[in-house]
């Protein structure tokens, strides 16, 4: 397993990364890509949902709520 891929998979899987080490390099890259894509999809879905929530707030509260949500 390449260093970068291993490092990224360790971020996701912790010590369980050892359980996937038997996969061919190509499959490990696919796994890494699938996990990264999932994170991007989640971030986009949460962003859209947060934007929708902010639109429903009175304008005076939007800045505060936005900060609470870490935006």
């Amino acid at each position, binding site marked *: 397993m390449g260093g970068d891929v291993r490092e990224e998979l360790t971020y996701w899987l912790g010590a369980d990364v050892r*359980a996937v080490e038997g996969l061919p390099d190509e499959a490990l890259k696919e*796994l890494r890509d699938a*996990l990264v894509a*999932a994170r991007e999809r*989640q971030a986009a879905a*949460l962003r859209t*949902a947060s934007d929708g929530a902010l639109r429903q707030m009175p304008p005076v509260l939007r800045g505060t709520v936005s900060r609470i*949500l*870490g935006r």
Partner: protein
Amino acid sequence: MAHDLATRAELVKLAQALGTTPDQVAFAAKLPHTTIRRVRERAVATLYDEHKAAFRRVAAITRLLPTALNVRITLRAFSPLLAARVAGEMAPDRAAELANRMPVEYLAEACVHLDPRRAAPLVHRIRQDRVLAVITELVTRGDFITLGRLLDAATESVVRDVSATVPTEALLQIGFYAESDAQLTRAVALLPPARLRGIVRDALKGEPELRSAGLALIGRLSDDKLRGQLAEYAAEADDETLTALLRTAVDDGAVAELLVAVTTMGEQAQRRVLKLKALTEPHMAGHLVRTVEKHNLWARMAPVVALMDNDLRHRFTESTDRQTDPH
């Protein structure tokens, strides 16, 4: 490539967890299903934990507001996705208080996004009629993956009520995606005999997908007595139905599940299934013997082999000799 049933279920669950299709995660099929599951659980935990701090802050604010206002704000401004993520960071009592006042459709959608690690304490605190209504809604949507996950959080009383109201086909699908064998076994054990018989009947008479779900179910039970009960109901079926089951087991790589089920039947039922003509088809004996070898089932199978008629036993031993003789 055909995958065994447990792998198939895990690939579907991994794909759903990552928001993609089973084809896109087919690379994971080379892993044991238990490893695919660990990958999914770790990935899901990482995904949920990434945004935890923000949702925890929102959850903290809800503590300052009365429940009615929280409900109003949530329904007006928060999608079920956001609400589920906030609920995961709230005290379960407080989250349940809100959930008890929300529309069932909203809750059903939120369930899909609920952190699996936080589901049980929350679900246990929601009123049972609400839980049952959400389950009915998820069944209507055909979201059996979420239902399979929720089975772990279901109380005995919920399982009893669901088993009485949800169609048997849906119960089979929920069982296919259930997370824990032990909880699945407990849930099946709670079903009354008539309901169990109905599940077996529908698994056998339904689409191949339901037969697969039935095979997966019988394979996952951790109680041989219960497995034997289901297997004996199955043995009451006609030859055509049992042959279809055998072929599905071969196609699904679930012959081991089928053989183990046969070993748990009573002798009369075992004699009945051993009369199936399909067992004498070319290659069938070889297929069965390979499965027995691979899963080390000789000790369990010995009493069944003893009940075979001379012709079938001859085919069986011949196949065994062929596989053990290197020449």
